Structure formats: C-alpha cells, structure tokens
C-alpha cells in the first residue's frame, strides 16, 4: 500500500458520489438550497406549518420567485471583500507587522457590507486595530512584530 492508495480510493468514491448527485438531481431533486441551508427556523415551534421561505432569502426585493440555482443570489462585494480581507492579513502580517495588517483587514472587512460608508469603515478599522493591540499585545503578550521588516520595525 503506497502513499497514493487511500487518496485514489477516496477520489473514486467521491467521483461516484458526485455522479450519483447529478443523476439524483434529475430524478428526484432536493428542495432548493435556499430552503435547506438558509432556513431560519426562527419561529422556533418545531414542525411549525408556516414555511420560512415565504420570502426567499436570496431574492432581491424586486423578484419574488425562488431561484433554484444555488449561486443565483451571489453578491460580489461582500464575497470578494471578506476573502480579500483575510488574504490581506495572511500576506502582510509578517512583512508589514500586526498593526498595518489588522488595520487593512479591518478596513476591507468593514467595506464588505453594502451600505457602509468609507469614513465609518475607517473608524471601525482604527478602533479594531487599537482593540487588537490592547488584547493580544498588552494583555496576552502575544509575540508578534507590531511593525514588520518592511516598515523598518
């Protein structure tokens, strides 16, 4: 049994399951993902007869019918901004240091929410940088460079 044995076997199983999913989607489709994954069972009473999908979650106000395509309601701004925020931290934490990385990540993340104004995002990012410094550096003594080599820290 070599190192590739288990991954190969798993890959074959996964491919078979994928095929089965495709076939099943034609024969007996699952309920639309909006109903499965995004259901907010907020009304708490189990077995409650009132379905939560009266207003589809992904629908913009102007279209009322649920869209069966899983990625139909995907919005680029929040998705890209949150992704970019995390990637920014990964790329800068060692070169630029903790403070610039935190500030940039906070700024990008704050901008992910549609409707957040730039000034508001700046305030959030600044506050967050200060808070991280107090919590992680002052209180927890985490050994991270505050300013990286790239900034002469």
């Amino acid at each position: 049994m070599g190192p590739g044995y288990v991954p190969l076997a798993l890959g074959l199983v996964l491919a078979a399951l994928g095929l089965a999913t495709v076939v099943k989607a034609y024969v007996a489709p699952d309920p639309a993902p909006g109903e499965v994954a995004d259901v907010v069972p907020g009304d708490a009473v189990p077995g409650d007869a009132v379905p939560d999908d009266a207003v589809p979650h992904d629908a913009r106000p102007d279209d009322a019918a649920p869209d069966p395509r899983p990625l139909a309601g995907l919005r680029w701004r929040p998705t890209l901004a949150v992704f970019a925020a995390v990637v920014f931290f990964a790329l800068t934490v060692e070169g630029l240091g903790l403070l610039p990385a935190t500030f940039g990540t906070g700024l990008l993340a704050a901008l992910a929410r549609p409707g957040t104004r730039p000034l508001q995002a700046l305030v959030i990012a600044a506050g967050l940088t200060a808070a991280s410094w107090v919590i992680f550096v002052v209180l927890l003594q985490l050994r991270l460079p505050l300013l990286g080599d790239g900034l002469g820290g």
Partner: protein
Amino acid sequence: MDLLDNLALGFSEALQWHNLLFCLLGVALGTAVGVLPGIGPTATIALLLPITFGFDDPTSALIMLAGIHYGAQYGGSTTAILLNLPGESSAAVTAIDGHQMARSGRAGVALAVAALGSFAAGTVATVVLAVAAPPLARAALAFGAAEYFSLVVLGLVASIALASGSTLKALAMIVLGILLGTVGQDLYTGTPRFTFGVRELYQGLSFVAVAVGVFGIAEILRNLHDPRTRTRMVSRVANLWPGRAELRRIVAPVLRATGLGSLLGVLPGGGHVLASYASYAVEKRISRTPGEFGHGAIEGVAGPESANNAAAQTSFIPLLTLGLPAHPVMALMVGAFIIQGITPGPDVMTEQPALVWGLIASMWIGNVLLVLLNLPLIGLWVRMLSVPYSVLFPVIVVFACIGTYSLNQNPWDVLAMAFFGVLGFVLVRCGCEPAPLLLGFVLGPMLEENLRRALLISRGDPTVFLTRPISAVLLTLAVLALVIAVLPAIRRKRDVVFAEDE
C-alpha cells in the same frame, strides 16, 4: 476503599485555598479569552499556557491549566452558539443546533444548557474515573489497529446524522473531508501529497483554519447576503433561562451522553473526538422529533456538550496509564507536565498520587467554578448579539485571522481559512453541510493510519477486519447505520416516483 482515598487525597489537595484561587483565575481567564470571537479553545489554551510556566508548585500550575481548559471550552461553546464560530471539533457539533437556537432567540437557554450539561457529565465522569480507571485502561488495550479502523468507520457513517439535508451530499462531504485530511506528508513514506510544492502544506491543513473557514467565515458571508437574519436575531432574544419542561427534556440526553462520552474518552488517541458526534447521532436517532435536529433542538446542544466533557475527564485514563494524550488540548497538558519535570505515564500515578488526583479533583472543581461564574454572565454574553453587525463581523474576521495565525505562526493557515470560507459558503448554498466535512477531516488521518497499520500487521490480508470480533461487530453496526440512514431517503424517493406515476 482505595478509590475514595484517592479522591479524598485529590480534593484535599485541590481545595487548598491557593489552588482554588488559581483554578478560579484560570477559569476566568480561559472564559474571557475563549469568548473572543474567532479565538477557539485550542488557541486560547496555547495563548494562556505560558502563564503557568513560571509556577514553582506543579500542582498549582496544572490546576490552573485545568481551569483555563474548562474556561476556554466554555468560551468556545459560547461563540459557537452565538456566532456559529466553533474553534474545535466538538464545538462544531454544538454549533449546529446551538446557533439555530440563538437565531430563534433562545441563546440564553442554549448557553445555560451547555454549562449545566457539562457540569452534570463532568461530575459523573469524575466518579467513573475514580472507580473504573484500571479496568477501563485494560479494556482500551484490547483495541488494535483493526478495531480503531472499524470504530472510525462507524463514527463516520453515524455522522450522516449531523446533516439535516441530503444523505448523499452528507456522504460526499465526509469523503471530501477525509481527502482534505490526506493533505501533507504521508505518515509511512514521507511522500508529500496534494502539497503542490508548497512547503507550508507538508504538515497538512490546520484544523482551526478549516473549521473557522467553513463555519465562521462562511457564516459571515451568508449573513452579508441576507441582512434580514440579523435584525431578526437581535429583536428576538427572549427567555435567558431554560424552563422546567426544557430541563426535564435534557435529563435523559445528558445521562446517555455521559455514558457514551465516558466510554469513548477511554480509547487512546481519538475516542474523544467521536464523543460529541456520536452523542448527537444517538440523540437524533432516538428522538421522537428527529426533524427538529439541525433547527434548534435542545437535545442537540445538551448531548454533545455533556459527552464532550465526560470524554475529556475519562481521556485522563489513557494519559495517565499509557502516557497517550487523546487530543490537542491533552497534548498541551502533557507539554505542561514535562515543563514541570513530570513525565506522564504509568509511573505518575504511583509516584505522584497527590498531583494526579489533585488534578482530577480540580477538573471537577473547575467545572463547579465555571458554572458559578458563567451562569450569571449569560446575559452579558448574549448581549454580544446586540452589537451592530457592521461592527461585529469585522471584529470576527480580524480576531479569526490573529487567532489562526498565532497558533503556528504560519500565514498559510490564514490563506487556507480564506479559501475554506468561500468554499464553505458555496457548499452551504449547494445544500452541502460543513459538519460532516469537518468530522471527515478530523478522523481521516486516523482512518488511514489504522487501515494501513492493520493491513501491515496482517501482511495485506483484509479479512483481519472481520476475523477480530470487536472489529467485526463495529463494522456490522456501521453497515446497519448506513442502511438505516439511506433507507428513508430511498423510500421517500420512491414515494415521489409513485406520486408522479399517478
């Protein structure tokens, strides 16, 4: 009575006022850091561990560590329930129903049930530990590679119950999780797999990065796509305390979970991971309203939290009798043992009985202090939900980045978190749930290691899994569980087909 003497010795050690104080301090610190969104229990313990290094008295150091451990776990459960941010494998189970409870305004109830269930389980498991440590340790030795393989297979199949949607997709998620677990160097040959030449991937993907990604970051993306969720959540924070009826509902699940957790915790090297998943699967299976699971079932919080705590207690048995840490937190504890000049293993119990039993007693006391400290604070934690989301989610993103990075000082872990965040979001939108994926990821390496070890020992003879009795029973159970899981789906499909025929 040996056992009672041992416990009495332990309590006399742990109840010394300075040890009590350290325990309280540990619980408070652990909770305070653990509830930071994005900082899970493992990260919390790793962050706070150095505090105990300076202590002269090893008993005090380890007792404080036990406090930190409980505080961190509870803090981690808090963020798992409130924000869907599990920092370790067991909290991922709590998050499934706990977060749904929070969404429907029952966050306080979920938090209280988690604390009370853990406390009850911890109490029972402490007694189990005192009474049954030697025979349980002998039983654990009967488990060879083949038995472990079969146990993991059973656990994986049972974890289909974690998903409330399609069985087929849940199976696919499990397999995908196992595959993700194979990233990194192969254990036996050292051959790098799926590393794409990136040296940072040789040690595999970080669990924390995957968990925080597929649950936490994906949850943020989901909320940003649906702002309605948030307003609803905040406006509906109602009753903080479980009612009498709810308390009565959790008694049986807590007891079952305690038994299950105590047994699984004894197995060295991984039983602990299965405890909370197994308890969830059992509760869902025997529940009269299985449809409620995944949508805020109180048993889905009480069971796994109790099982996890019971297993945490009994996982001391392999640690003390065999010197084997059962999970990352235990490994950190072993590190602390060694720093204090004590090598864990069979000898510790005879050479340092005061220390060992003091630690066990202190874990129970840590539990008591945890409940006393945190029940009054539940109102405060729940208020975390009333922070405007435009402020809360950047905080989660930044803290998650810092926490994930600080574990290994590896920026690749943070990159992986970003990747798994988007992947988790897309999967959820496709009706694939992240919990089975995470379990596959945790258990995958164990599955492969024991499969290959068993086959090596048997010289490639696969019948070894069926000729060894324990292994055969476990595999039979797994097949049964699979059939039971798949049958309703087939029946439902046939109903659909028949309905179309008419």
